[in-house]
């Protein structure tokens, strides 16, 4: 049984891509939350953060989904998700409502208690309580870290994942050139402008393979699927993983885009 902790109740924002493509990322997030002394729950009424509607200019759908999400995460002390982009979207919710709307205050409130996972661990929980757990882990690889745009520029995530990572035994971080440059994923951008997106991700994979890294890590599955897909197409040997898999010691799963993995067998 997962330990039922007396710590804060945290609502897990699963994110669509973790839900559909890589449940192990959401499980790793739960594990980290519980190790940090939180009680993690998964509200059933959640779907997507609404970013596809928001960035397509569909204000009404964005507001509908924002209301649904605000309701779903009512009452949790914190809302945490494994994505700077989706949590960043929750932070846009106050912009979606007029200040007179009854959801406006609730949107502000949700914003104040929602965090991307590495920022939650580092900024809210604090390194002191995590260090011991992390130092017991082993990941004997040279890694490089891609800073995803929303996490970096909207939520100020830069040092948090690096600091956490440095605690893990064996991890050697080698920074790539232009770690802060967009990988070209951009939600629907990669489908609307595939050729430009391709140029951007090609630049990225070049910078990645210019390092000696065995693994490229990141905090957003969108970017990771994009980079992993390009690395595979180019036949490059670099693995791609979400950072929580390393921090939770769940790296026995095949990396993103690597050979078959059947979650059912693992359960």
């Amino acid at each position, binding site marked *: 049984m997962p330990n039922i902790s007396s710590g804060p109740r945290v609502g897990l924002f699963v994110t669509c891509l973790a839900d559909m493509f890589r449940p192990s990322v959401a499980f790793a997030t739960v594990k980290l939350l519980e190790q940090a002394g939180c009680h993690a729950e998964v509200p059933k009424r959640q779907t997507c953060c609404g970013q596809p509607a928001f960035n397509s200019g569909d204000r009404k*759908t964005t507001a509908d989904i924002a209301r649904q999400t605000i309701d779903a995460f009512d009452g949790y002390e914190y809302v945490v998700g494994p994505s700077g982009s989706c949590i960043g979207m929750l932070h846009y919710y106050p912009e979606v409502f007029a200040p007179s709307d009854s959801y406006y205050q609730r949107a502000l409130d949700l914003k104040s208690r929602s965090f991307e996972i590495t920022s939650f661990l580092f900024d809210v929980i604090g390194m002191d309580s995590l260090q011991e757990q992390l130092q017991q882990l082993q990941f004997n690889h040279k890694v490089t870290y891609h800073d995803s745009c929303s996490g970096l520029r909207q939520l100020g995530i830069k040092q948090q994942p690096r600091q956490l990572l440095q605690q893990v035994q064996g991890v050697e971080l080698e920074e790539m050139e232009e770690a802060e440059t967009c990988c070209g994923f951009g939600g629907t951008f990669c489908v609307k402008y595939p050729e430009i997106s391709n140029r951007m991700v090609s630049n990225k994979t070049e910078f990645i393979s210019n390092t000696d890294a065995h693994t490229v890590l990141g905090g957003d599955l969108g970017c990771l699927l994009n980079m992993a897909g390009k690395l595979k197409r180019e036949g490059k040997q670099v693995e791609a993983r979400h950072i929580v898999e390393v921090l939770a010691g769940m790296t026995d799963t095949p990396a993103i885009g690597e050979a078959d993995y059947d979650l059912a067998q693992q359960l």
Partner: protein
Amino acid sequence: MQINTPFFKQRAHDALADENLQKALGNLKAGFPEKRAIAVSRMPEFEQLRDQGRDLKNHILEHLDLYLEQFERKVIENGGHVHWARTADDANRIILDICKQVDAKTVTKGKSMVTEEIGLNDFLEANGVQPVETDLGEYILQLRHDHPSHIIAPAIHLNLEDVSEAFHANHHREKSMDPAVLMQEAREVLREKFVAADVGITGANFCVAETGSTIIVTNEGNGDLTQTLPKTHVVVTSIEKVVPTLEDMTLFLRLLARSATGQEFSVYNTLSTGPRREGDQDGPENFHVVLVDNGRSEMVGSEFQDMLRCIRCSACMNHCPVYGAVGGHSYGWVYPGPMGSVLTPQMIGIEKGGMLPNASTFCGKCESVCPVKIPLPKLMRHWREDEFEKHLQPKAARYGLAGWAFLAKRPALYKPYTRMASWVMKTWAGKNGRIKKLPLAGGWTDWRDMPAPQGKTFMQAWKEQQKTGEQP
């Protein structure tokens, strides 16, 4: 200038395949951002300066009418003339009238984006007045019947061979590939033009209300010759360029040079305050300022007002990965990069300009370097909202979004749907862990593999785990 914005996608495709252009863009990327970063690191108060710049611009835009009136009054007091041009046509006609008054055959021009915007060169030529661009980059473009692809490095898309050829064909001198020789050649040819010109036309980086002065900021000095040698000087500028005082101007000059080229200050900062006075050594006999509106007053008070803070430094395009991939000509009209993606639809209409605000990943880099903190991604999103409301997006995108929205608003349907989608992709991938060709996702799999889902959705696996009490 012809509007090619609707062909953005095709032009971007061509640009991606153009090796020379890609090399030039690589140089640009390596140059300006690095220089800016160094200049900014040398100035700890740069962030505060950006806030001040933003606040001051907002204040100006709140009182735009007052400052413009004050500026007009001062120019007239100084002996100059002020002309108000509501549209591009109005502006062109006003400028042509001034040229006709002095019977002008040729005019020299300093670099000015707003004259590109109104299509001044073509208009003057069609009406018997020959314009000569004097900024080296602009001059090369004029010889090649080309247009700028960048706002401060207009000919960034060309290489040395292009320049050499253009000079050889037009100057009828021996062909050279030595930049120093080419530079000297341009100097000699242009010198004659400066002396012969009847009218000099420049833009203005700022218009100072307090003194009635306009200022141009350059690194070549050609602007000085353009505005001091001919008998008549015409400043063509747009209404949002006004600043209250000389001191305010210096705030923007500090932001501008660092953001644009990483210089502490531009090489030439030249102020013009009215025509030549008695005892003056030089300067024009007639001084005109043409204040161009061309859609800007409509932006005041609208959701696009923030865009009027732009001081045309080009930092947003220098740092934009999309601009860096496709170059300025892909944008198909005067203003490229993120600032162009907001401004262009305002000026040519969202129907023709809609491609641009969509061609962004919203990575936010542009906003993070903009010296006056224009929320460029947010403004691009406003355009997408406008498009959405007018049903201008392609049908496939609209139906796709509607279908997704229907599910996303119904958690009970969303879950089985994601389960199914995940299962289909997983099955399609087989044992590979990735998909090489995915129907309906050609845009993705044409260029990269699609990593396969792990199997069950998280929601499904979580539910089962909660029931059985097992650990994953």
